[in-house]
């Protein structure tokens, strides 16, 4: 429950922030200001991440104010970088801000925000998906740094990223969660090889990243040795909020495509009387999920996203699949076709298309309940960390990592 005093404070802050942004925009009119220049100035003004510390792109305000700021800049016609640098903005910045040294914050946050440096995430491995803490990529101390060897997978933007959020094992003799460390990897380092990973749409949004004797200086380790798991939680919590929290206007996004598909089908005489309730059932569930997101985002006084972010992630994933499945059904025979399966590597620089091929969108949606934590893992988190139910019996938690069975 929110504290009354905090809420009053939040209302005041909202007005303050609104005023600051207006003044900033008056000084840096978006139509006549170069995008990167504007973003650099915005960072310096503390309007990049208002909940970050002053000097780090923020003003030390409440996290709940950030969506308002973003909206004000978008409404003023500024470019939307949320997709193009989704890992950096959505997860990297908060992780570096929370766990970084002053030097690391100074070095990485500004180019991340301006878009000069795109970030990617090097967490998952072929043998460590849901069980992320089982990862096997090794980081061995050498000189004033570490030598990294291993293979990462599901690296979106890996082919355009300048930097990567890397978790690697520094101590295989400790239990799995306690032998990990977190690194900020320069993707241009020798030994980093990025290979596209073709997915069921024919495209390759993701990559495999092979790390062979890659040197990372000790100054690019984030947090303490062995603290990698705890730090990666910051990244993942932010990821779930970022995934679940998309779309802010009623009827936007996938459900909007479904409404359009339904109208088309009715118009073409393809719709079935039962389709309307199927659509409306999804519409109401999507709208409920959207409202829950707004409620969660409006919670003031919480420095980081909590496990409730898994509600949004879970709903987003399951609903997106169901919505696009409906879209394909509404196509009738044309649902047996697709625009193409041509191989390509999107860099996410164009905003999401207003009218995607819904068949492609359907195929793509199948990853929603897998990437960023499967729906099964989300339900574990909700059950254990939100509702307080007991965990399963584990045989992998307290043994040295090297002794735990793996596939």
């Amino acid at each position, binding site marked *: 429950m929110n504290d009354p005093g905090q809420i009053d404070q939040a209302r005041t802050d909202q007005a303050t922030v609104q005023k600051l942004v207006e003044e900033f925009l008056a000084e840096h009119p978006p139509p006549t200001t170069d995008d990167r220049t504007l973003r650099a100035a915005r960072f310096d003004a503390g309007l990049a991440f208002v909940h970050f510390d002053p000097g780090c792109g923020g003003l030390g305000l409440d996290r709940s104010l950030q969506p308002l700021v973003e909206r004000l800049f978008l409404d003023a016609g500024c470019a939307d970088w949320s997709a193009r640098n989704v890992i950096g903005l959505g997860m990297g910045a908060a992780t570096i801000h929370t766990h970084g040294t002053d030097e690391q914050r100074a070095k990485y946050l500004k180019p991340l925000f301006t878009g000069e440096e795109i970030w990617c995430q090097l967490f998952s491995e072929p043998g460590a998906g849901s069980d992320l803490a089982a990862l096997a990529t090794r980081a061995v101390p050498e000189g004033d740094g570490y030598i990294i060897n291993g293979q990462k997978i599901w690296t979106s933007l890996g082919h355009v990223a300048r930097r990567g959020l890397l978790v690697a094992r520094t101590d295989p003799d400790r239990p799995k969660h306690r032998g990990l460390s977190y690194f900020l990897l320069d993707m241009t380092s020798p030994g980093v090889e990025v290979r596209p990973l073709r997915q069921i749409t024919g495209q390759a949004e993701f990559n495999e990243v092979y790390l062979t004797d890659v040197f990372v200086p000790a100054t690019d380790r984030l947090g303490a040795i062995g603290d990698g798991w705890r730090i990666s939680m910051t990244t993942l919590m932010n990821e779930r909020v970022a995934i679940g929290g998309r779309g802010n206007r009623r009827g936007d996004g996938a459900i909007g495509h479904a409404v359009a598909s339904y109208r088309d089908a009715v118009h073409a005489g393809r719709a079935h009387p039962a389709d309307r309730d199927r659509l409306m059932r999804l519409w109401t569930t999507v709208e409920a999920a959207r409202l829950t997101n707004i409620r969660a985002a409006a919670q003031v006084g919480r420095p980081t996203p909590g496990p409730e972010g898994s509600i949004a992630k879970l709903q987003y994933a399951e609903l997106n699949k169901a919505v696009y499945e409906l879209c394909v059904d509404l196509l009738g025979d044309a649902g047996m076709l697709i625009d193409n399966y041509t191989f390509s590597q999107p860099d996410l620089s164009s905003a999401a298309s207003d009218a995607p091929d819904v068949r492609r969108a359907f195929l793509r949606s199948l990853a929603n309940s897998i990437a960023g934590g499967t729906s099964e893992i989300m339900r574990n988190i909700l059950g254990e960390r939100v*509702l307080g139910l007991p965990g399963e*019996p584990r045989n992998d938690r307290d043994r040295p990592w090297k002794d735990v069975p793996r596939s």
Partner: protein
Amino acid sequence: MTFTPGPEAEELRAVVRGFLEKRSGEAEVRRWMDTDAGHDPAVWGQAATELGLQGLAIDERWGGSGASAVELGVVFEEMGRVLYGGPFFGTVALAATTLSELGDTAAQDRYLPGIAAGDTLAALAWAGPDPMTSTLRAQPDGATGGWRVSGRAELVVDGGVAGLLLAVADTPDGLGVFAVETTDGLTRTTLTPLDLTRKLAALDFADAPATSIGTPGAITDRLRRALDIAVLMLACEQVGGAARVLDMAVEYANTRVQFGRKIGSFQAIKHRCADMLVEVESARSCAYYGVWMAAHQPEELPIAASLAGSVCSEAYTRCALENIQLHGGIGFTWEHPAHLYAKRARSSQLFLGSPVRHRTRLAELLDIPEVVG
């Protein structure tokens, strides 16, 4: 936009919860559910005089507190949580709301103070599935200058105990609302409700003398608005109940041991609880959004009401049935409270518009066409 109830509403919640836990615990609910009255008059009186619940959303000029739908929603949420059996829904959500919305000051002067004081029990009666198409009939009574109401209302919430009946009836000029206070021309038949904690009666009106509230044919929009607010109060009740069964399920899953483990450690149980949590939070969002819109953006009321009307009732039913399943055999017994919630959920899902009807209305409001032929 922030539509979560604010600090004042949360303070109210704490008071109401404390009161209901003390005066309407499970034992009380069970004791009174086996009676026709369904509630303890002393508790009802206390709610009115000490807490001012009946008058919470009634304007101050009629002895109420003039609070908004947001605060009233909190009260319904708390009542839903404990299955409070008094005629609060009929009296406050339906009758008082209708009187407030219809804006007939003579009727308000006459009836609202009694409701706010806890002296008047009231109900809204109609015939057929939807009040807006009620097939009760009313005709002017030339002799008295009043009206006469006829027809059978098959199912009236709190109709057995209400001294004041507001009958939605058709007239040659269109739909009207009529106050029936006498027992002349009125026969009440007590029904066996699926949900014993909400009393139902059939009412036969045979030329029952009545007073018109507002002008027949001119009250349609206002009545529709009153009903939408009532749908939202029902949704709040449903959120309270759904949250309570989730608590109950989690508590049991954290206690019951089978196969040498607490059953909540099994994914079959844990993931079901997680899905219930999603349902409860979805329902809560829709209900809170709805009452907020009722209070602050009335033009959004129809969409918000039907959204809540469909989402909250299905969420409650799913959670209540899941709670029985999760409890296993013990949840199937009369002695365990799980069934009381399942019956309330199932019953309130069919009241004031089924989910599928609310979704159809939403589609109409959003101009999403139906499929013809």
